[in-house]
C-alpha cells in the first residue's frame, strides 16, 4: 500500500558512516508497512514524514510501547502514522534498552502524541525528553512500579484506602490461581 514511503525512508536515511537510520523495512500481514528506526534519528524521520510534500503524514493516531522481556533491547516504542491526504499508513518501531529507557518526544511534531507518551511512561517506565507535561496518566502518584511491564504481577494491587482483606483467597479470574503463585 505505502511501500513507496518505506523505500523513500530507507533511501533517505541511509548512512554508511553512522549506521542506517531506518532499517529492517518489511510488509506485515494485511499490507502494513513497518520499518525500524534508530532512536537518535527518530525526530528527523518524523519531521521528514510530516513536512515533506511527498509524504504529508499529518496525524499520529497511535503510539504505544511493547515489553519484550528477555530480549535486549527490552522495550520497543511503536509509532503508527497516517496521512489523510494520501491515505497512507506506516508503522515505525524504535528499540529502547532497559538501562537507558529514554526517548525523544514527538509532541512538538504532532501535538496529539502528548497523552500517548504519558501512557508509555506510566505503564512501561520509558521517559521522554522534551515532553511538556511529563507525569503519570492512569495510575495515582503513590503507585510504585509500571504495571504493564511483564515482571509486574497481574494482581499487584496497591490500595489507597485500607481494604477488608479476605485471607486464603482463591482467585477465580484469569491469571495464577493462588496469591502465592
Amino acid at each position, binding site marked *: 500500500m505505502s511501500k513507496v514511503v518505506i523505500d523513500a525512508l530507507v533511501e533517505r536515511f541511509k548512512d554508511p558512516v553512522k549506521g542506517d537510520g531506518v532499517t529492517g523495512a518489511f510488509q506485515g500481514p494485511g499490507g502494513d508497512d513497518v520499518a525500524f528506526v534508530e532512536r537518535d534519528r527518530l525526530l528527523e524521520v518524523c519531521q521528514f514524514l510530516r513536512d515533506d510534500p511527498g509524504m504529508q503524514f499529518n496525524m499520529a*493516531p*497511535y503510539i504505544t510501547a*511493547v515489553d519484550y522481556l528477555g530480549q535486549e533491547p527490552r522495550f520497543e516504542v511503536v509509532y503508527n502514522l497516517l496521512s*489523510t491526504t494520501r*491515505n497512507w499508513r506506516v508503522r515505525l518501531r524504535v528499540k529502547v534498552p532497559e538501562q537507558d529507557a529514554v526517548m525523544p518526544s514527538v509532541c512538538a511534531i504532532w501535538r496529539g502524541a502528548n497523552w500517548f507518551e504519558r501512557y508509555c511512561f506510566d505503564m512501561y517506565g520509558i521517559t521522554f525528553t522534551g515532553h511538556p507535561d511529563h507525569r503519570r496518566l*492512569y495510575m*495515582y502518584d503513590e503507585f510504585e512500579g509500571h504495571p504493564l511491564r511483564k515482571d509486574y504481577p*497481574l494482581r499487584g494491587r496497591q490500595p489507597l484506602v485500607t481494604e477488608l482483606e479476605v485471607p486464603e483467597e482463591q482467585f477465580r479470574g484469569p491469571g495464577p490461581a493462588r496469591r502465592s503463585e
Partner: protein
Amino acid sequence: MSTEVKEALKPVAPRSSELDAPLKSKRMLVNLGPSHPATHGTARAVVELEGENIASCKLDIGFLHRGFEKSCENVTWTQCFPYTDRLNYVSSIMNNVGFALAVEKLCKLEVPERAQYLRTITSEIHRICDHLTLVAALGLELGAMTVFLYAVEGRDLLWDRLTELCGARLTSNYARIGGVSRDAPDGWAEKTTATLDRVVSLRDEIDGLLTRNRIFVDRVRGVGTVSRADALDLGFTGPCLRASGEPYDVRKAAPYLVYDRLDFDIPVGSNGDTLDRYLMRIEEMKQSDRIIRQCFRDMAPGELVVRDFRYVLPPKPEVYGTIEGVMAHFKLIMEGIQVPAGEVYGYTEAANGELGFYLVSDGSGRPYKLGLRAPGWPMLAALPIILKGALLSDLIPVFDSINMIGGEVEQ
C-alpha cells in the same frame, strides 16, 4: 446638621478611572468530578476560572482504569471478547468486530459472507445506539429531558432486537474469531426493520426538538471550535474530525467487511463547533439506517464461521462424534487459538472515530500485547486546548459532544 457634616455627607461622583478600572479578582479553582452527574464515566477536570472564563483546565483521568491490557495478556484470544465489550460500552459490538478483524488480519482468515453482513448490521445498529446516547446526554445536560427520554426509548427498542440476536442488551460478546457466534432468529430482519422505522420517527422528533431550537443553538453554536489543521494535529478521528472539515472515514478509505459494496455518504461539517458535532451524529444515524436496510436486502443465508478447526470450535455433533472434533475443541478451549507470531494494527471506524487494536502475538494461545487505540482519547486529551478562554457553562456541551466514553479512554 453643621455645614462640615453636610459637606461630608454629599454624594461624590466616582472618578471615571475608577469606573473603567477592571475589578481586581483572584482566580478560582473549581473541581469537576470524578464523581460526575453526567454519566460519562469518570474524569476529573480541575478548572481555573478567571471570572466566568476558563483560564486553564487540567484533566486528571485514571478513575476507571481497569487493567484491560494486562487482563487480556493473561487470557486466551477468545476470552478477550468480553473485555473488549466493556471498552466502548454503548457500542460494544463495534469493539468485538474491531478486535476480531485485527486477529483475522494476523491469521489471514477469510470470514464467510453472511457473517460479514451480520457483523455490519450489528455494528451499524450499535452506531445508532451510540449516537442516540450522545444526543440523549447532550439534551439532558442542557436541560432537554424529553430528548433524553425519547433517545433512551429508541435505544431500548434496538437493544430488544439485539437481545433476540446476541442474548445481552449492552455487552453483547457477539463476534468470534472467524465469524459470529449465532445466527439471526426467524423473522428478525422484518422485526428489526419495523424497529428502525420507529427509531427513525423518534430521531425525527429529536431533530425537530433540538436542531432549530433557539436555546439549544445559542448554547452550542460557535462553542468549542476546532479548526481542520488543529483537529489533524491533535489526532482527532471520526465525527469530530469530519465536523472540522476533513472527510476521512475508514469505511471509505480502507473498506472492511462489506462497506465497499454498500452505497452510503459521509457527512462532513464546516465549522468544527459543538453544533456541527451534534449534527454529524444526526446525519450519521440516517446513513447507518441506509446501510442496515441495504444489508437486509443483500444478505443471503450461509455459513456463520470459517470451517477451520484451528480457529473455530467444531460443531457439537463432531465434537461428540469424532476424535478430531474432541481434540480440536479441547485444544481451542484449553490453550486458545494459535495465532501466528507477528504484529498487526487493525483499525475500523467505530461510532466515535478510529478504533485500533495493535496486536503482538508470540505464536501461543494468549496475546503477548493487546494495545487499544481508543477513538475518544485524542478528543479528551485536547479538551484543555479547546476550552481555553471558553465560558464555564461551555464546558458541559463540549465535553458531551466529544463523546468521551470512560471505558475506552481509560481501558
